[in-house]
């Protein structure tokens, strides 16, 4: 079953922060986050495993609440390059079968 992302769209000014949420009705083994620029392929950001730690690099980090089957992606001090559509992908068991949410479009303005 497809995870639900919120919000559907976000518009920010450079330097502002944003949070994108991903929620599943099923117990999860892992949550993935990807970013897709218009007309390009999705690009991997990070993976969070059940029982694992909060991940992050640069000013983008994420958390995974296993009990609530929820993950959140945190974008701090956003840059113009952060613009794109963000997808969470969920895996219910260690099968590699990754189901994506519908996406959150993020637009960062100067």
């Amino acid at each position, binding site marked *: 079953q497809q995870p639900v992302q919120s919000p559907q769209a976000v518009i920010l000014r450079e330097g502002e922060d944003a949070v994108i949420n991903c929620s599943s009705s099923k117990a999860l083994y892992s949550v993935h986050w990807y970013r897709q620029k218009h007309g390009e392929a999705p690009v991997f950001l990070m993976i969070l495993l059940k029982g694992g730690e909060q991940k992050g690099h640069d000013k983008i980090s994420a958390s995974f609440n296993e009990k609530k089957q929820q993950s959140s992606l945190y974008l701090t001090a956003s840059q113009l390059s952060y613009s794109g559509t963000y997808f969470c*992908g969920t895996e219910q068991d260690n*099968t*590699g079968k990754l*189901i*994506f949410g519908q996406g959150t479009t993020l637009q960062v303005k100067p």
Partner: protein
Amino acid sequence: IAGITQAPTSQILAAGRRMTLRCTQDMRHNAMYWYRQDLGLGLRLIHYSNTAGTTGKGEVPDGYSVSRANTDDFPLTLASAVPSQTSVYFCASSDGFGELFFGEGSRLTVL
């Protein structure tokens, strides 16, 4: 350059025709996937393969078939295309550590 190659990049097809989208990777990844992307619906899994010789159904497998004769190739076939199969199709592979590597996509229009 290592990666995933998809072909064709773009195709217009008459309804009822058979079409095969090709996907080749040179990273020796065991797992491969086919997704379709439609506006507002995100990426939906069509079929996947965890290793050569095995395949599995995803969220939206109807009207599509796949084969995995070897590690590198994972073609997707539409036996009799219908307009609802108009979409952008992405092939991806995984290195077993979770990260999916995507091809550049194949844009298919069925008239």
